[in-house]
């Protein structure tokens, strides 16, 4: 990850500021940076979204491809996550440099989405034991300015919201051979219900307090952070401690409470943006990277 080098004095300045609930960019401890979300930015995907959180820039593309269901879940489709830490973000990611971080993030995403209620996987099944939709969720890291996980989860949720899977019908003739027929109407498609898709809230411990949405500078001052994934109703689906320092149990509970509160409001504002964009339909002016 792009690293910043801070002097002791700079660190102290940040830590003291956090104690007074006033961060370097003027935010309070529970405030997010201004986030920009746009869906449907890559036209040859089933769904895509770009999320920008401060300097963190994430592009997510979802591709629906037909595959065979997993043996243990014959009547469900599944999600595949892949994270590409491109060299665009930092030269350290050149070649295979970003693979380690990419796998770590992908594994975290798998864990976040492992909860059964997150996405209705049964709706992705076409033909039990034979065919199902596999949603390839590909995350592309374009720039990292701190708080990667939150930004990625926002982008993933937006992209899943935007995903349209073509409707197919299974036709069976007398001999029992099956044929899959694609609907003629391109607008005839399945949408995913993303109400239960969680968002990640990372809480970084700085001094005695914790902050949400830490910038790179703040991440450099924090020894340990807690990553929790919260659904819009405030249920936790995954929790993970990251960083080299340690946390005491009491502060973990405190951070969980903050996380839930912040996560709920994050979901509300994200859903509002997504609904607004949706209501504009085709009249929406696509900005993409040109704006």
């Amino acid at each position, binding site marked *: 990850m792009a690293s910043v080098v801070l002097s002791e004095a700079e660190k102290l300045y940040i830590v003291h500021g956090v104690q007074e609930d006033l961060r370097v960019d003027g935010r309070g401890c529970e405030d997010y940076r201004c986030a920009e979300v746009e869906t449907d930015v890559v*036209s*040859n995907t089933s769904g*895509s979204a770009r999320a920008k959180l401060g300097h963190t820039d994430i592009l997510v593309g979802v591709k629906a491809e037909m595959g065979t269901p997993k043996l243990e879940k014959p009547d469900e489709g599944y999600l595949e996550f892949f994270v590409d830490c*491109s060299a*665009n973000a930092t*030269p350290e990611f*050149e070649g295979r440099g970003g693979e380690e971080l990419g796998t770590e993030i992908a594994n975290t995403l798998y864990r976040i989405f492992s909860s059964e209620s997150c996405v209705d996987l049964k709706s992705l099944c076409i033909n039990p034991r034979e065919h199902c939709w596999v949603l390839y969720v590909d995350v*592309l890291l374009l*720039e990292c300015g701190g708080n990667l996980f939150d930004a990625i989860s926002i982008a993933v949720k937006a992209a899943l919201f935007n995903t349209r899977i073509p409707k197919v019908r299974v036709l069976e003739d007398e001999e029992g051979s099956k044929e899959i027929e694609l609907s003629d109407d391109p607008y005839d498609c399945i949408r995913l219900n993303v109400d239960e898709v969680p968002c990640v809230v990372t809480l970084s411990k700085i001094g005695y307090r914790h902050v949400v949405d830490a910038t790179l500078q703040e991440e450099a001052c924090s020894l340990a952070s807690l990553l929790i994934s919260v659904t819009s109703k405030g249920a936790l689906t995954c929790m993970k401690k990251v960083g080299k320092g340690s946390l005491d149990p009491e502060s973990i509970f405190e951070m969980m409470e903050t996380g839930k509160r912040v996560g709920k409001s994050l979901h509300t504002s994200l859903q509002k943006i997504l609904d607004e964009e949706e209501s504009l339909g085709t009249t929406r002016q696509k900005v993409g990277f*040109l704006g």
Partner: protein
Amino acid sequence: MAALELLSDEGYRADGRRAAELRKVRARMGVFAQADGSAYIEQGNTKALAVVYGPHEMRGSRSKALHDRALVNCQYSMATFSTSERKRRPHGDRKSSEMTLHLKQTFEAAILTQLYPRSQIDIYVQILQADGGNYCACVNAATLAVIDAGIPMRDYVCASSAGFVEDTPLADLSYIEEASGGPQVALALLPTSEQIALLEMNSRLHEDHLEEVIEAASKACKAVHAVLDQVVRDHVQEVTALLGD
């Protein structure tokens, strides 16, 4: 005749363009704040991002440093969702490595590398959406990114492709035109001096036609140059206006 008509009798191509017509080019400089230079370009449905870091000290092994000029280091990658069929790896496959090499060659010809001995310039390009002319979009985006980074160049490098269908040269091929398997020329040009930085041709083409195909490609390059130049001028004007306050 092929199943798909690439050039109709009336002279229109599959997407409605004339033979020498380019797709719409839209570009923006300074997309990212952390990189030294960055740019984004859209050529029709092909979308590419380029980021430049440097010139900076050599990273990794110092043995690669060149004592009389800067090392140009490139990486070409394609987002896994950029193509209609999902790609398994964003970079590192044979085609990407070839593209990386081409880009390196192109920009070594254009950047005044002798001004920065023993240093390194990184150019990373990323295809976000692929619809033909990936190499060209990358070169054009990288040119803008290098300019954004303030690295001196001999000239803009502008790239365009050209094909040859039914005795007519076609400029700026789209994916379906590329996939049809006809002759295809990719050309990177330094427009003012009309020097060629890279020329590559696939498939078979009669020698007599080569000149007109190259002519069509270089004409397209010059048209791209006009657009890029306008983008740079607009960007500089915008930035100076902001600095002026």
